[in-house]
């Protein structure tokens, strides 16, 4: 099999990409601001889901 790709910084570009693709990222370490945003998101999703359930219940009723 031919090896394609150019050496970039001493490393085959495609090998570098495959390394990136293989990398497993753990859970993100969120800043306080990001944590606050995540809480807002939870409130938003729960609120919207409640609205949807309410709307469908009313439709069925």
């Amino acid at each position, binding site marked *: 099999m031919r090896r394609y790709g150019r050496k970039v910084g001493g490393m085959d570009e*495609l090998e570098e990409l495959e390394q990136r693709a293989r990398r497993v990222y753990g859970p993100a370490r969120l800043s306080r601001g990001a944590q606050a945003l995540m809480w807002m998101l939870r409130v938003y999703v729960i609120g919207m889901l409640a609205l949807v359930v309410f709307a469908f219940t009313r439709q069925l009723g």
Partner: protein
Amino acid sequence: MAVLREASRDADLRRLDRERVLSVRSRSRSPLQNLLLFLLLAGPGILVMIGDNDAGGVITYATTGARYGVGFFVPFLLLLIPVAYVVQEMTVRLGAVSQKGHAELIFDRFGRFWGIFSMVDLVLGNCLTLVTEFIGMAAGLSVFGIGLRPAVVGSALLVAALVSVQRYLTAERITLVCAAVNLVFVPLAILAHPAPGQVLSALARWNLPGGFTRDVLFLVIANVGTTIAPWMLFYQQGAVVDKGLTPRDIREGQQDTLAGSLIMGVVAVAIVVLTGTVLFPRHIDIGNLSQAQWAQTLAPYLGPVAERLFGLGLFEAGLVAAITISLSSAWAVGEVSGQRHSLNASMRQAPVFYGIYAGSIAVAAAVVLLPGAPLQLITLTVQVIATLLMPPALLFLLLLANDPEIMGEHRNRLGANLFTGGIVAMILVLSTLYGIVTVFPHALGG
């Protein structure tokens, strides 16, 4: 080309594609070489944006023009071009740098709940959106005298046939050729003989006759929802990874996204100008027009050629959207389930990926052919799901694009953060308003 071994088929094909890119890169940087490089690397950005001008989008723009003319919405749609660009550009950097799809990164960084929530919401919303694409394709083909059943079955086979090439680049190029038909709305708008002064005056004055009512809110949300949709994030990032774009290709990826945003904006404006010129001044009642009736409504004023062009445009809009939307589902499920997910993989290598693609097409086509299917409920549910998913998807995008561990030197700059933060806030407000107005229809006094 070297004989492809089954086990490494996708990796080998990617290497082959990279060789082409590197060969062009290694030559002198003349304008011609730059163009060649752009043509080689462009695709995901243009396709995602044209896919976004889907059958539902065409009807949304047509309704907008017919109801409100060019006054408010032409400038509004032009404003949405940078919005679409800024949002989608982040997926280029994320994909090129991480070599992972959007669903996989959400799963990895924000945990199982948000990963599964995003994927289920996306796949469900995509399946239902696909139903509307098949309705659009059938409506487009009906202009040429093709009945519902052969139109839907034929369209489904066409959409499925595209991935049977099992080669990313070939599938992308074929879809790009189909997508070029989206531009048909531009000559259609010119055929309508719009008054240039009226369009320019709309840009200068930007007023809304009748004020900001509930109907206008719905159209604003529909237009925003048509411009940026959750599946677009998953599609473009997945396509960037599958195409094998690297951090060195980010600039071309950005140009590709910019080109796509401009095409999307021009086509959207063309449709609004078309119906805003032909239907709005005549106060034609577009109340509950079906998709097929739109082309017929234009025919008396623009002739049979225009009717056929509109039909062709509607068919193309549904076709390209069906391909891109199904691919976004297939990539997302493959990423989260840890199964192989590449258009360069063979069907034997990636059964889940191809299964999701074919399955969602089959289900959507079957629903359209089902007698008495609740199509209105489906359309409403699509909007509700998209509304639910959009703020989380945008917020995750923003957090990921700022993640130093993933993005390193390619993380967002302050300007992009401020702009995207504003967009997230706007979407959040519009989505909440939309949710409230859907449940309490008289909340805005309409």
